[in-house]
């Protein structure tokens, strides 16, 4: 770890997408006009695929090394070196980041390919690919950064691309507002993130190691666990809490999750890539990346796990009532991200990352599948106007079903492997209440996912005749991607089988060097109930099956009525769920409106008071007290521009002394002499 091997092709993994983005930004429009969309597609997809190839090469290269030496570094140039903060533009490849890189470039590459079909009709085709490439670049920067500031560059960069792609169809203000919302929510998290970095840097400076390079932090992190920041909280806790707040913004956890459902306003590939597979998992990645730091802060770990679990359940309860095909998936994403946070929160970093990976597969598959549906229906997203599509869109249906089974955690699909590992870890590390929340959420997941499957693919078609007429399976570029992702959703979990099935899991071993710091091991080593894992898996499956059954009864067989169920529950939970617990409204009333009022007040204040006060100060110095009459006048009239007016008025007064009367002038002369003499005489006596 001390002497990482320097490999200079890693940079191309990152830079290639950037070049693609630059190419398409600068020339894409012309190219598209002159040579057609093909040219754009070639560059747009080509760079990501090339990147993926390089990542694979790097992966293979890494595998050649002994596990403890699997660290590759590519140092480009000195970024800045100020006040002990010496940072490079450098990329850092270790088992964790290679996994993430492969996901980003691999799934990302697939989604790029899918987009060539999905976005084919869009006039701003080039722009889409440019942003998509830029996103890939930013995400890879985030993943591969060797220091936290560079990571933050990617961290905000993905936010920017998310903003731009959510508002891709910018002529509709709804989309752009959703983009703004996403960016601003992310900014709140980013704010916490940067403050955390300041604090971290300051803390490390105090112990004599001013650095923000991740591998160096790993070395000095133990020093922070005992260093107090505020009110008895250690620097590590303080920093990690803030970092986690940052992660909630990026990964749409409570309290900063509200942007993600709205983000579905973007094109579906965007939802798949950014708002499901990659960007939103950045928070999880960041915590896994900084496991040595988080492990120093048990309080933070608890908070992470709790928030994750609550979010998982909370989002699931919203998901069961949504009718927009993508919104259901959005809430499901939030929920699944909650699982991942529980994973890293309880110290099961590998499980968290594992779920991150499988989720990338099946959630991308789900989104792309829904995209295919939307594509087929000419933009329709409301599930109440779908139905019976399975025979019209067979590929879509089957892949969607596989992914649904995966997300529900049905063995042997990939989701089962990862999700069950997390649920089990929660219990295993002594958090039974977290386990129970996740357990319920798993049931709800099965319910809303199958509800979606049934509403979309089964029953009668409820759309317009015109839609029915145009129904068609997606083009090969799209369906091929679905198939690949479906396969991955099915088999992707094989790299890490549950312990009660297999004793050796290559994924865990591969990642182990990242999570092998003493403090991390101290957290993860709490395994008490080895033998119970299988039973707990069965318990989960039971509830999942119940959820499935309920969905089946309600939405396929229509034995149960959703309306009646909601009435049975007095409507309150249903209303709350349907309206997403009024969180948006809460933010609106509690934050947005007061702030807007405050800004208007500040604007008024600036225009009337500050300007007035500054002028007033000038006025009082110039005028003195004898102008009090005039002064009052102006105070009543408002303070604006008082100074100029009052000074001028003073001039006017003085002018009136100059009456033109010679007697008056002589008074001025002699009476002044008299006054002087009088004053002097009084002083004299």
């Amino acid at each position, binding site marked *: 770890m001390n002497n990482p091997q320097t490999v200079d092709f890693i940079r191309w993994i990152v830079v290639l997408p950037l070049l693609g983005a630059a190419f398409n930004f600068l020339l894409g429009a012309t190219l598209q006009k002159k040579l057609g969309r093909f040219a754009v597609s070639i560059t747009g997809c080509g760079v990501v695929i090339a990147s993926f190839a390089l990542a694979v090469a790097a992966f293979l290269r890494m595998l050649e090394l002994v596990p403890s030496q699997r660290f590759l570094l590519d140092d480009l140039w000195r970024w800045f070196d100020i006040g002990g903060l010496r940072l490079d533009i450098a990329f850092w490849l270790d088992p964790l980041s290679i996994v993430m890189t492969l996901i980003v470039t691999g799934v990302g590459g697939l989604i790029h390919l899918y987009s060539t079909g999905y976005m084919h009709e869009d006039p701003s085709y080039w722009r889409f690919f440019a942003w998509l490439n830029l996103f890939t670049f930013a995400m890879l920067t985030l993943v591969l950064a060797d220091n936290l500031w560079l990571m933050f560059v990617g961290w905000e960069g993905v936010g920017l691309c998310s903003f731009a792609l959510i508002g891709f169809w910018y002529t509709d203000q709804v989309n752009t507002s959703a983009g703004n919302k996403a960016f601003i929510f992310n900014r709140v998290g980013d704010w916490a993130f940067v403050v955390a970095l300041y604090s971290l840097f300051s803390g490390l400076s105090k112990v004599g190691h001013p650095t923000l390079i991740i591998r160096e932090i790993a070395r000095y992190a133990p020093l922070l666990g005992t260093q107090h920041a505020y009110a008895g909280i250690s620097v590590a806790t303080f920093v990690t809490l803030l970092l986690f707040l940052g992660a909630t913004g990026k990964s749409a956890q409570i309290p900063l999750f509200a942007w993600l459902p709205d983000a579905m306003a973007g094109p579906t590939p965007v939802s798949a890539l950014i708002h499901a597979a990659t960007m939103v998992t950045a928070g999880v990645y960041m915590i896994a990346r900084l496991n040595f730091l988080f492990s120093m802060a048990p309080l933070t770990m608890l908070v992470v796990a709790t928030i994750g679990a609550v979010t998982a359940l909370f989002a699931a309860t919203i998901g069961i009532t949504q009718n927009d095909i993508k919104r259901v998936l959005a809430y499901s994403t939030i929920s699944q991200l909650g699982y991942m946070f529980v994973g890293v929160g309880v110290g099961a970093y590998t499980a968290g990352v594992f779920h991150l990976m499988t989720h990338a597969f099946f959630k991308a598959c789900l989104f792309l599948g829904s995209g295919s549906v939307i594509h087929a229906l000419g933009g329709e997203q409301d599930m109440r106007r779908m139905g019976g599509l399975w025979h019209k869109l067979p590929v879509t249906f089957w892949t969607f079903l596989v992914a649904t089974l995966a997300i529900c955690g049905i063995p042997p699909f990939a989701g089962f492997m990862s999700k069950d590992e997390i649920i089990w870890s929660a219990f295993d590390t002594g958090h039974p209440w977290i386990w129970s929340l996740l357990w319920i959420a798993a049931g709800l997941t099965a319910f809303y996912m199958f509800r979606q499957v049934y509403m979309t693919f089964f029953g009668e078609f409820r759309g317009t005749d015109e839609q029915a007429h145009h129904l068609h399976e997606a083009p090969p570029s799209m369906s091929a991607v679905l198939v690949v992702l479906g396969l991955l959703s099915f088999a992707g979990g094989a790299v890490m089988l549950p312990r009660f099935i297999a004793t050796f899991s290559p994924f865990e071993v591969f990642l182990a060097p990242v999570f092998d710091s003493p403090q991390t091991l101290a957290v993860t080593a709490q395994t008490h109930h080895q033998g119970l894992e299988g039973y707990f898996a069965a318990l989960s499956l039971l509830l999942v099956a119940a959820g499935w059954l309920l969905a089946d009864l309600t939405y396929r067989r229509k034995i149960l009525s959703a309306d009646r169920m909601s009435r049975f529950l007095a409507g309150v939970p249903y209303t709350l769920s349907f309206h997403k617990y009024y969180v948006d409204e809460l933010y609106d009333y509690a934050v947005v409106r007061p702030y807007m009022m405050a800004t208007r007040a500040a604007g008024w204040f600036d225009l009337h008071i500050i300007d007035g006060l500054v002028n007033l100060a000038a006025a009082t110095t110039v005028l003195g007290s004898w102008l009090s009459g005039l002064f009052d006048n102006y105070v009543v009239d408002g303070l604006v521009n008082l100074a100029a007016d009052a000074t001028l008025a003073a001039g006017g007064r003085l*002018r*009136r002394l*100059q*009456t*033109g*009367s*010679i*007697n008056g002038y*002589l*008074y001025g002369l*002699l009476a002044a002499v008299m006054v002087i003499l009088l004053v002097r005489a009084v002083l004299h006596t």
Partner: protein
Amino acid sequence: MAGLTLNHFLVLGLILFLLGGYCVLARRNAIGILLGIELILNAANINYVAFSFYGGQAAKYDGQVFAIFVIMLAAAEAVIGLAIVLAIYQNLRTIDVSATESLSG
């Protein structure tokens, strides 16, 4: 000159000075104001001559000479002053100074 002191003359000068001062302040007639100025000049002259008289050899004639120059300049000023007053009178048909207030502010 028993009993007669410098202060007698100075106080007389002061009284004339004050009457002159009052005159210039209160009069509205330009010539009236000029008359007041003459009173002030005479008041000063009394002082000069008195100091000259009481001032011993060194100051013997300085005061008187000064007074002569004051009279001389008073004459010059009166000439110009009256010329201006007449010119004003020609223009305005009055020498009341309240009529000469077009310049003000």
